[in-house]
């Protein structure tokens, strides 16, 4: 959580652009990463992330009433945005086709080749999982969201999230083994 986040959110709800700007600076890289792992294409991830923050800014007055953690609220918007994009179009490059050249396009600034290969494996393995499993694993282990935050973002109970997380990790291990 960002320092003084509650105050910033209050100001943003009142329409203060500078307050929302600070929230944007903090959460935009996280949302972008989440979206990119899901869509697998830099341009799409940029467009969708941009749209997520426009929607968030235009509807921030609704945030307080629902009482969600701000990050969960943003992830929920991002999730819906990605689902909407799946409905309207299919991804042009699937993650299964991702090679080293495509990694430059994805914006992964990893110098070590070994790390790049590992990232490639992780992304390929993730792509083989169900959407809910992907979301829970990314939120919990990449974005370090709490169980509660993740539960709010995916619209499930905390118990369901724990169970799904356990299953997702097992599935991911299986996927890794098949890739190696």
């Amino acid at each position, binding site marked *: 959580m960002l320092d003084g986040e509650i105050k910033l959110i209050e100001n943003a*709800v*009142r*329409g203060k*652009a500078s307050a*929302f*700007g600070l929230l*944007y*600076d903090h959460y*935009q*890289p996280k949302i*972008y*990463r989440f979206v*990119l*792992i899901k869509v697998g294409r*830099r341009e799409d*991830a*940029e467009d969708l*992330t*941009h749209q997520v*923050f*426009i929607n968030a*800014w*235009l*509807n921030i*007055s609704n945030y307080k009433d629902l009482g969600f953690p701000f990050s969960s609220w943003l992830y929920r918007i991002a999730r819906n945005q990605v689902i909407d994009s799946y409905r309207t179009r299919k991804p042009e490059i699937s993650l299964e086709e991702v090679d080293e050249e495509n990694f430059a396009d*994805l*914006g*992964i*600034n*990893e110098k070590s080749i070994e*790390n790049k290969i*590992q*990232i490639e*494996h*992780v*992304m390929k393995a993730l792509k083989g999982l169900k959407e809910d499993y992907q979301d829970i*694993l*990314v939120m919990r*282990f*990449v974005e370090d969201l709490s169980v509660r935050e993740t539960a709010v973002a995916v619209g499930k109970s905390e118990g369901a999230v724990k169970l799904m997380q356990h299953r997702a*990790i097992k599935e*991911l*291990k299986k996927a*890794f083994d098949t890739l190696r």
Partner: protein
Amino acid sequence: METTELLKKLKTIKPDSDYSRKSRMVVLSHGSTRSTGSGRAELTINAENRLPVFSFSFRQIATGVLHSGWSIAMTAIFLLLAIGSFSVLKILSPATTAVVDLTGLKAEAQAIDAQIELTNIEYATAVIENKTSTVSMVLPAANQKAKSKQMKSGLNAAGMESTSTPPTIDSVLEILSE
């Protein structure tokens, strides 16, 4: 390596800084029309969401009307000028014709024709003289003078009549045979 540790490697993914900066500007500019009152802000946002294309302000409409009014006025002025210049030409045309002296022009044209005729006559006589000199070589010397005088007078008369076409050898011979 642990699966969760591998997942943490995805943290290295970062958005392009240029994209982030531009996107931030655009996102925040979306809220530039927002008012500070929460109720009114919602109203403005909802109105923007519902009517992104047709949400015109009074000022925009007024400027639109002014612009179209200007264009209509300009078109009308151009039309008036076009029609006006046509009628002005009509009005001015007798004046321009009055300036030109038609009788004078006619006389001038006739004078040119006359000059052409005169030069033709001179040319014709010169040709005939040449021909008569050749004929005189053939005819006996006694008759030559008298006949050439006669011929000259006759040819002169004929030359005056036929100004446009020079006399041919046949016509000269015909005159000679007379």
